[in-house]
């Protein structure tokens, strides 16, 4: 009986999807729409004081006026530039250093105590020193972003490099690869997934760091806008800044994932998630 059901619904699959089931790219929109709706309705209904949680419409209106005045873009650009610069330098340092650290026990022996010593010092704890060193402006913020992300990326890549399948490296060596070729042609591609994972973690961290820096060390940027809005009790602007930071992070993460999908095309059809997706497909059929 169940086989018959399967058969029948199998043919119905495409139309059923067109009618009801969400397409993959729509899945992420639904919860966002729910959040937006609650954000609008809960303060409107008076359940929460609108001064503490302004509805979405008022927050957006604040955004529109900020854009019109030309201020928002300047702040936004300042933050993006600091994140971009600090993050880029961190990536350029951390990826090769992480690979070196993961592959060389000697290097790791020298460096790991220093890393362990620096690790508990959180990015905001670097802010006073950064101001003393670089004064007020872009430089301390970029420094904080660098310091806050470089370590995380480095440690993640080093541990991934340590667990690269040694037999693949042996295979390369026996096929005539030099040690450098083995690193470039085998270790690096092996690390592809780990590198992208670390890049995404690092990017999120970079945004956290730039906020910490901008709340004290500068007169421009989203973090500065946020603190200023709080001082003036402009809750709309506070929420607006937070929403922008979130949206930017989401967009950049998507960008990295798209890039990952392009670079790591060979992984298609290998992941465990595909197995579970196949399992879900079965359920869809019987629906």
């Amino acid at each position: 009986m169940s086989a018959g059901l399967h058969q029948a619904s199998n043919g119905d699959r495409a139309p059923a999807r067109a009618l009801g089931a969400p397409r993959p790219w729509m899945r992420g929109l639904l919860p966002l729409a729910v959040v937006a709706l609650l954000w609008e309705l809960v303060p409107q209904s008076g359940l929460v004081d609108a001064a503490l949680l302004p509805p979405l419409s008022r927050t957006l209106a604040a955004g529109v006026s900020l854009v019109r005045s030309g201020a928002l873009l300047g702040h936004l650009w300042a933050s993006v530039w600091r994140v971009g610069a600090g993050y880029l330098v961190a990536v350029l340092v951390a990826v090769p250093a992480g690979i070196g650290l993961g592959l060389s026990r000697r290097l790791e022996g020298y460096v790991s105590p220093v890393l362990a010593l620096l690790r508990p010092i959180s990015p905001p704890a670097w802010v006073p020193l950064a101001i003393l060193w670089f004064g007020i402006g872009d430089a301390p913020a970029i420094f904080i972003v660098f310091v806050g992300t470089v370590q995380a990326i480095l440690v993640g890549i080093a541990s991934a490099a340590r667990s690269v399948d040694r037999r693949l490296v042996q295979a390369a060596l026996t096929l005539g690869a030099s040690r450098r070729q083995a690193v470039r042609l085998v270790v690096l591609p092996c690390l592809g997934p780990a590198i992208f994972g670390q890049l995404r973690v690092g990017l999120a961290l970079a945004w956290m760091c730039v906020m910490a820096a901008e709340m004290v060390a500068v007169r421009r940027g989203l973090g500065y806008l946020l603190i200023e809005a709080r001082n003036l009790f402009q809750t709309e602007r506070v929420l607006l800044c937070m929403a922008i930071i979130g949206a930017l992070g989401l967009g950049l993460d998507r960008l990295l994932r798209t890039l990952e999908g392009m670079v790591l095309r060979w992984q298609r059809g290998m992941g465990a998630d595909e197995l579970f997706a196949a399992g879900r497909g079965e359920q869809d059929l019987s629906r």
Partner: protein
Amino acid sequence: MSYLRLVEVSKTYHADGRAVEALAGVSLEVRQGEFVALVGPSGCGKTTLLHLVAGLEAPSSGQILLAGEPIRGCGRERVLVFQEPTLFPWLTAMDNVAFGLQTAGVPLQERRACAFALLESLGLAGFATSYPHQLSGGMRQRVAIARALAISPQVLLLDEPFASVDALTREALQEELLRLWAARRPTILFVTHSREEALRLADRVIVLSHRPGRVRAELVLPMARPRSAMELAPFLERLRRLLAQGCPTQGRGVAIA
């Protein structure tokens, strides 16, 4: 005259403060173009021997000479094929085969043409652009062998290359290996667990003793290939007895298929 010479080669591993002797004074002479099979109980150091000849590890004592010269590290004239295919999962079958040419600096188009020709000769032309995870176990091992042959090695080291495929595929792969060997005549050291496989393929079968590995005996097989089961029967019996003696702890039920 011998081409590949092992002179009193020993290898001792140190792990957790204990010394494990894998090979103890192995001496071996192999002629150029000869097909030599190595058999012996599990853990007799067969794989270690291949790693030493490949140059992935250095012997603790003794010498390995190739054409009179001591080997130093890995070299393009010696290639090892592992028990598992160990293909690079991010490369297509064709680019896997072309890998050794890439490390030699052969231009892309040229090395791909060469790799494709090799795949074609192994009946894998239709899978040149497939990734390893899209291939069956037997196909993967074919690709791994093609990858080793692509750089035209003088010495081909095979570490139980057919251990993980089914019996039918195994026979097909054995035939293909013999065909390739006849055409290109590399010197082959072939490690196997299977007595039948060793006898069917090799010019000479070297029997290693239980750990630490020593050369215990050798069988010379002068017959032409393909060899019939009847021809091989007396050799099989001798080999079975040799292996049974070689394993003191397990007696007759040696860990040999």
